[in-house]
């Protein structure tokens, strides 16, 4: 097996429609992303580590959540309960999650809707049905956000007393933490030790 130069990026896909979830999962996996799908905004927030109304990072994070970093969130706009827009807002309001790029999908081409999402901080808007060619637009947003993240991390390294910190020293890349800020490796810069993740063929 070839040694990969990077672990696959992890995308969280949110859609209440079962066939659409299957489709987006397939599109993402075909494009070499690791995928988690959920069927609602509230489940997405739960997965991301936000519980209830409190959008600040939880003091104690479950061990299994520490394994998971999310590099991008792609969500349907029209969902019962929490819409994709509501989810976007919650993510942007969260100090631990707001740097994660968010893409909105919608079957309706409504300029005012698109603008509202972009203004709220969405990085991209896909018209459904989403196609394979749309997937190539995702990685640039992930890389851009990680450059930003890396910069913030370097600025705050001394004063960082975040209890979500990995037990490993900050220069180590072998652990993935719930907060995607913990990833330090830049694309193509270094060979990461392989974690438990398997590449999806």
């Amino acid at each position: 097996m070839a040694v990969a130069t990077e672990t696959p990026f992890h995308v969280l896909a949110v859609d209440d429609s079962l066939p659409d979830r299957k489709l987006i999962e397939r599109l993402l996996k075909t494009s070499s992303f690791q995928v988690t799908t959920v069927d609602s905004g509230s489940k997405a927030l739960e997965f991301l580590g936000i519980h209830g109304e409190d959008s600040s990072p939880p003091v104690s994070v479950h061990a299994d959540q520490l394994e998971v970093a999310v590099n991008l969130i792609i969500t349907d706009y029209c969902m019962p309960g929490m819409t994709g827009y509501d989810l976007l807002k919650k993510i942007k309001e969260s100090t631990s999650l707001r740097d994660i790029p968010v893409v909105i999908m919608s079957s309706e081409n409504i300029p005012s809707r698109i603008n509202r999402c972009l203004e709220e901080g969405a990085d991209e808007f896909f018209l459904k049905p989403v196609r394979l060619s749309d997937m190539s637009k995702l990685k640039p947003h992930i890389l851009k956000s990680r450059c930003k993240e890396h910069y913030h991390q370097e600025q705050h390294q001394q004063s960082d007393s975040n209890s979500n910190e990995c037990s490993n020293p900050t220069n180590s890349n072998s652990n993935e933490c719930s907060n995607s800020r913990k990833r330090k490796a830049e694309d193509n810069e270094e060979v990461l030790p392989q974690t438990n993740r398997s590449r999806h063929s």
Partner: protein
Amino acid sequence: MDYSNLRRQIISMKKSLFDQGYLDEQFNQLEELQDDSSPNFVEEVVALFFKDSSRLLTNIERALEKYPQDFYRLDSLAHQFKGSGSSIGALRMKNECSMFKAHCSDRNLEGCRRSLQKMKREHATLKQKLETYFQLLRQVGPRERAVNSWK
């Protein structure tokens, strides 16, 4: 094994599904996503669509029978249907959903009822045709199944 007859049948059936407007380009997109790692992807996602849409049809029917009718909810159900139909390339289904939604906007109950009957017919027809199509594909076996490469 000589699959040429079978292949001809499959190609011809697919062409007719497209020519008659049952399916659109999105269906091709689905077939392109199918490969060795996901050899039954198209059939699986189509099955999910029919499961989901059967439920929606039942809910629409119930909502139409309730008085007073909640056109907002009816529109929302049709919208979900339209969305997932469009994801699998079900063109005629998608168009009939649009008609239904238009009747909802007009609060045209009779129009909704007629449209629902059409939706049910289209749904049943598409289901039957795709079942036949997948049956033919199953006969050629996984290696042969990449229909898009048969050009």
